[in-house]
């Protein structure tokens, strides 16, 4: 029972953070939400007994890709404009 509850909370968190990452005008905030989604996804992988994938997801998803996105935002611009680009 407790396993299902924890998994449900994790999955709802993944959906919520993914929605916030997409639906945000501030791209830096979106990047941080993407990192949070990656972290929750890594916890979900660990619960589903795939610790190898969990380690890779935590290192690549939450660590490296966040850094690369932050660098890309520094080199372009931080705010999405009204036209959506």
């Amino acid at each position, binding site marked *: 029972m407790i396993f299902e509850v924890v998994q449900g909370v994790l999955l709802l968190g993944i959906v919520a953070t993914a929605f916030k990452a997409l639906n945000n005008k501030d791209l830096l905030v979106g990047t941080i939400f993407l990192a949070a989604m990656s972290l929750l996804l890594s916890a979900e992988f660990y619960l589903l007994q795939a610790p*190898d994938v969990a380690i890779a997801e935590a290192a690549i998803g939450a660590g490296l890709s966040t850094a690369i996105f932050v*660098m890309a935002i520094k080199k372009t611009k931080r705010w999405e404009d009204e036209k959506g680009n």
Partner: protein
Amino acid sequence: MNKGMAPRESEGMTPIIKTVALALAVPITVFGLYIIAHGHLTPGGGFPGGAVIATLVALFLIAFGKDIGARALNKKMFSGLETVGLVGFALLAFLGLGSSFFNNFLANSPGLFGMAIPFGPNPGFMWTAGTIPLMNLAIGLEVFAALSLIIILFFTEGEDK
């Protein structure tokens, strides 16, 4: 300066972030090396371990900025490390050609990592598995150097806005 961005990129970020980055340097490196070294016993291995250590390079570049980062992190050195990792991996694979490509010629031998695995459930022993730990080390070196090189090039090249 645009809305709410950090101070100028060449100076890096605030002293808080710099201190935290320095404090995290040893734990991240040790954890990455642990993942690489225990690749044949526990989840992980060369790729996740190398990626974990490469995040340290990204953290340092973001925290300390372009000037210090570009001076301290030499692109040629990372390129050389990448070559060493790839050549080491291929060499280990070719050394097994006595019977077949990728043959594990070190397992159950008196040489490096040559301990025979005891029968039955056991906690796992470091000195086993022959060429696999060495290949994990080569892959870890390669992944660390390649990802660091990508991050450094991404950060130092091009115009800033």
